């Protein structure tokens, strides 16, 4: 049975205000439920801007020249307000320090749900469950600004989990985490994809994507230059763009394999 389409970008182009070059240039992509897509590309290739296009931050919040259309769960994103968009797609930003402003982890995670009009008790309960899922249950009532970078990033991920949206967008979600925590976060994202959610993550670490993603999108100069399965990671394109290919791993039969 064909999987249901949840997000479609049609000929999307965007230039930031005051800049001539396109951060995203004529991109058309479709994402389906249960998919775990990794977006890779050199620094400044437009990966983050592409994510911003997916949840309406471009052009609603970030001004510039925009053309094309974005369909979120079959609806035109330009006609949706942020509360409605956040029900469909939640987002984790690269630097958690810039998005955390509440006094407790619980309040921070519940913020999105309260914006949607969820009852305070229900929002706090959902926040508690999401925080427990990222392994920070004991930090629920602590000040998030006092946590380590890795723990803050987990709080940001818990915000996305609590939102319970069908699509989860992540901008280099493990850039401040150690190897073990990165593996844990990606394993959790993989589990969410298997539950039927769509996970779309920009990432520099191709090894993590090789292990957990199901689809690889390569972006260069604002354009999608390759879109395919995990075989993309072992193509010559990765080296040509200055990206590090996935590290070889020991297979189950003891032989060294590349994904």
């Amino acid at each position, binding site marked *: 049975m064909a999987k249901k389409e949840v997000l479609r970008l049609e000929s999307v182009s965007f230039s930031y205000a005051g800049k001539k070059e396109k951060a995203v240039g004529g991109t058309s992509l479709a994402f389906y439920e249960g998919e775990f897509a990794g977006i890779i590309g050199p620094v400044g290739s437009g990966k983050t801007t592409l994510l*911003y296009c997916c*949840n309406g*931050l471009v052009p*609603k*919040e*970030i001004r510039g020249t925009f053309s094309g259309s974005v369909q979120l769960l079959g609806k035109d994103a330009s006609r949706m*307000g*942020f*509360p409605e*968009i*956040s*029900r469909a797609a*939640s*987002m984790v*930003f690269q*630097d958690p*320090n*810039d*998005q955390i*402003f*509440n*006094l*407790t982890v619980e*309040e921070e995670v519940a*913020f*999105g749900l*309260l*914006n*949607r009009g969820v009852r305070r008790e229900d929002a706090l309960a959902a926040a508690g469950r999401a925080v427990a899922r990222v392994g920070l249950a004991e930090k629920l009532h602590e000040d998030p*600004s006092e946590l380590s970078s890795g723990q803050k990033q987990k709080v940001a991920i818990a*915000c996305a989990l609590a*939102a319970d949206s069908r699509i989860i967008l992540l901008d280099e979600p493990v850039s401040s985490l150690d190897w073990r925590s990165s593996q844990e976060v990606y394993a959790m994202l993989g589990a969410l994809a298997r539950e039927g959610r769509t996970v779309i993550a920009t990432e520099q670490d191709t090894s993590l994507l090789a292990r957990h993603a199901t689809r690889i999108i390569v972006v260069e100069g604002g354009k999608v230059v390759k879109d395919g399965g995990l075989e993309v990671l072992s193509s010559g394109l990765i080296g040509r763009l200055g990206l590090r290919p996935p590290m070889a791993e020991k297979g189950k039969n003891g032989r060294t394999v590349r994904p």
Partner: protein
Amino acid sequence: MVHALGARAKLALLALFMLAQVFAPLAYAPLFLAATLALYSLARMDFLEVVKSRKALLLLPLIPSLVRLLFEKGSVEIAGALLPAGLVNGSLNFVFLLSLVYTPLLFALTTAPSQISGALRSCGMPKRWALIFSIAFVSVSYIQKKAERTLAAQRARGCRRSVPALMLPVLHSCFRRARTMAYSMAARGFDADEA
């Protein structure tokens, strides 16, 4: 006790406290500082630790008090002794402003931003402005930490203390944080236009 008090009650008490401070004679300033210290004690917070961790805030009471100390002429009689007016009024002014600055800080440190904005909204303030004020309250410690980190980085590179060299990166960082925070709030369903 202070933590458990509702945000609206805290805001009302804070407003009353500050109004009383402003309209009371300067001689009562030590009493108000004693009340501030008692409130910190009730909240189980170490006043000196709070002052130490936010040293930059000390400039607010310090600068005007120093001006008064250095430039106020005349003398004041206290218990039969004549003392320089600059010394007496400068000291009282410092005590007055110390209490005026650190009491609202206690409110910010013990109240969640959503509760602050809720309390401000219940006083008739529009949602958008209420949230701006509540985030401003809790951003004080971020700015302080950012300033300390910037200062340490500059010293490590042999830079001498300089206000523009400190202020420019701190301001740039604050604007960048404000922008990303706005994106993050929008992505979590906060609609500024609706607010």
